[in-house]
């Protein structure tokens, strides 16, 4: 199982971030999620970064999706560096980010 991201379907609502933490820690916060919404307001450039066990970081950028990036350093799109976050565990098969994404920009691929 893996998650597929179609970045141009993303509308930047951020629900995937908070539902991820709800599954992981039973709280609402974007701080502990495995998926991070990255937004650059002035250029309306936005997409998703997903930390996976098998592919490293998956970058869902408007110009395309790329995997295999390694998490590094203390910087990153979220206030908590992605290096310190847990990789996606597919919510034990429930993939809650897939369920809540209103535009289906995140889907499950077997």
């Amino acid at each position, binding site marked *: 199982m893996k998650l597929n991201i179609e970045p141009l379907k993303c509308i930047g609502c951020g629900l995937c971030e908070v*539902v991820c933490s709800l599954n992981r820690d039973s709280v609402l916060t974007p701080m*502990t999620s495995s998926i991070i919404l990255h937004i*650059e*307001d*002035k*250029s309306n450039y936005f997409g998703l970064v997903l930390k996976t066990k098998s592919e490293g970081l998956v970058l869902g*950028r408007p110009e395309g999706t790329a995997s295999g990036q390694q998490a590094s350093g203390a910087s990153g*799109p979220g206030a908590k560096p992605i290096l310190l976050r847990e990789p996606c565990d597919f919510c034990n098969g429930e993939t809650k980010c897939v369920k809540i994404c209103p535009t289906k920009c995140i889907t499950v691929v077997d």
Partner: protein
Amino acid sequence: MYMANGRAGVVDLTSVEISELEIDEDSLLSGDAVSIAERLLSDIGGEGFVMGSGILTASLVPAACAGFVIGPPKDNGKRIAPLLGHAGAEFKLSGFDFLVVKGRASEPGYLWARDGMLEFVRAPEFKSLDSWGRTDKIRDSQGDKRIQVLSVGPWGDAGFDASQFVVDYWGGEDKSGLASELGRRNLMAIAFRGMGEFEVSDPEGHLKACLRIQADQIDRMGRSSGIESYDAAFAREDFKGLLHRPIACFGCPFPCRSFLKIHEDPRVMEHSHKEPGYLHYDIPALHKAFGSGMSAREATDVLIKCARAGAEPVSVLAESMRSVGNASASSIEKLLGSAHAVPRVGLDALKGGFAQSFGDAQQYMKCLGLGLCPRYWAKAGFSIEVVSECAELAIGVPLKG
């Protein structure tokens, strides 16, 4: 306490004293954050302003993105502006449900809230910057591009009635001149970053109820094309020709925000380092610009100029029409650069504004007081009954009607 921090930050800018005030659980769970904010404002003698969030702000309820700013009444009218985008949720996640501001700082600066901490940061250099420059400066100096910034521009500094605050560069929320409340206190911006978390009474139940309500609303409303999905007047070819992508506020499945690019090809999705466009969600301003004969490109250019100056565009366009008989980019630029106040166009004349979402002020306050976007919920169909199940599973008690 579910879905709340249980506290307000209180800032006296004159003495630079910062304190905290406990907000009791019963008040917060009432779901009427606007009344709590009015009480807090009254407690400081009405001489200041209060920023607030609702009990459902940052929850999974669709479009639970709203915070608000409330200032002292003027001309017998309530002055309240929603705080949208990701700002409402981010403010609440910064560790405060409310922020009470009074006094006047001895030099320019901004308030910085994150991780339950609040400080006044002196920034004399802000005096020479416009609202966009202030937002850039804060994000650069604090090293985080996701810091949410409510900033004022030179018009707010000057205390003009027709000023507006902008949120992350964009305007549309502040139609009551609340920016002047910040400006006259030497407060150039408020910045916040959400590092907190909220416990939920029944996490699985809350998620399932919110998924049901979201699915029902998407079934009925379909997919949004941005602002034209809220007002067909913007389905014009010149507007669509500049459309880059719609973008949503936190948790919104049907965004009203359309980003237009005017200095580069809007179809290009690669990253750009220019300042190429504007996020349109100010329906009254667009109506006024198009009604003045402007094209989508000219309207976008004018709204950028107004946002940077921290000037409310409907009032600026109306004044340009009145004083020189037209509303061209050059006449607007001249007006924005002048040191003369222009009259603020009253809320009643702002068709399509957030405050006009329901045509019923009580519904508007109820929706905003819960932390829900009034524009989205007016379209989706708001009632306490509709949101009650999602809400109760989040906060553990039934919502009051």
